[in-house]
């Protein structure tokens, strides 16, 4: 998927308007990246891309750029 497609996907996942989600958006600025958002994120990555986040990866997610980095590491992102 492209970066733009990934951003749209994250917006849908966190139920945020697309314009609120950009590569430099921080976790604390995304209201939907909460207790429910983290479970949804794990489920979506697993079900859609077969990506299982490690505890370390989970704890180090601080914004959208970290999510994009996860996708890159798993060869799920086309530039």
């Amino acid at each position, binding site marked *: 998927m492209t970066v733009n497609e990934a951003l749209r996907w994250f917006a849908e996942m966190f139920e945020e308007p697309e314009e609120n989600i950009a590569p430099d958006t921080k976790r604390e600025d995304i209201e*939907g990246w*909460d207790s*429910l958002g983290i*479970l949804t994120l794990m489920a979506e990555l697993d079900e859609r891309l077969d990506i299982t986040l490690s505890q370390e990866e989970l704890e180090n997610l601080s914004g959208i750029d970290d999510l994009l980095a996860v996708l890159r590491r798993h060869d799920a992102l086309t530039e």
Partner: protein
Amino acid sequence: MKLTLDRLGPYLAKSLGLSEEAMLGCFRPATRGDFEQVVALRRTLFTRTPRWNDNAYLRWRYDFSDDQSPVVNRFWIFKRGDEVLGGVGLERVSLVVDGEVMTAHKSMDIVVVPAIDGKGLGAWMNLALMERYPVILVVGSNQNSHKMLTRLFCELPGLQVWKLPISVRGTLKRRFRLGPLAAPLAFPVDLALKLRRKSKPVQCPSGIELQELTAVPADVDSYSKDSTRGSILVDRTAEYLTWRFFENPRRDYRLLGLYEKGALMGYSVYRVYRSEENDQIEAGILDWFTTEGLCSADGEKPKYGLILLRETVEHLVRKGACMIHVSASDEYSRKVLGGLEFRRRPEGSPLFVYCSQPELRNRLLDGESWFLTEGDEDTDGF
């Protein structure tokens, strides 16, 4: 996106290093032996020392006995080994839907230990309760919980705050630092407010009187069921009102009864306090109801509602209130409050509804049918 326990549970289990089955076993009503841990967990999460006795509050609101009876209010905990990682309170309420009484649960007081905050336990506990209870309500939200609640529950407008200014003297003195000038400057404004308040004629039959009561009369037991048409509300029985307002260790509430020739026609519950913001006396009307029910569906003009709140307002003015606030959700209440010169404010508390039964859910999602008051919130103004 599908937000279910089946789908999301395995990911929390992985984060917590538990099997799904073990995780379900960790979630149960707290008993006597868990009480101190619940108190300690809440204490770690308070941003400042609470202005109430939290032990007394928890013991009042929830049953911590070892009996696991489902017919009482329980505080559910998630306990991994010996450690309570989170919890959520459930208050059992009787809901009157179009005159029929049914059981529902109000969810409140959710807590998660900071070390695992953000892993999904709060959402999981909500989903786990939804598997067990067909109707769950949440009144109000905060910055941390709002988004999650909007996704797990259906959000309705809920309560809107209405205010009636009685005197601006405190505001002039404190906010504008006018000191001794405040009283003479406030006088014409206060007079105008009084004239405006009194200019709204309320038809008041003879033989009407307002009485301060020390106990909730049993007469109210039939109010909710008999006098509501097309409405949804928590059943306001004498037992429930006594527990909610007069056994409540967090606040000192008072009760007024409106009598007509000796018959109780309605009641109001109020609180008079000194506002931290303005350092002036303010009053809140927490709950109220009359025998005429919620007559907006028929387009009738409220009669006893207007009389009850008008008399309550005058009672609170005599107690020195400079500002009176009421929270309301429905057309009937809006008619009453608008008729008494209350002004609607932007602040409010949404109502979140979960219902597993499609037909009932459609009924419960009609936001205009809900009669809610501040008494339906669990925060008691804190």
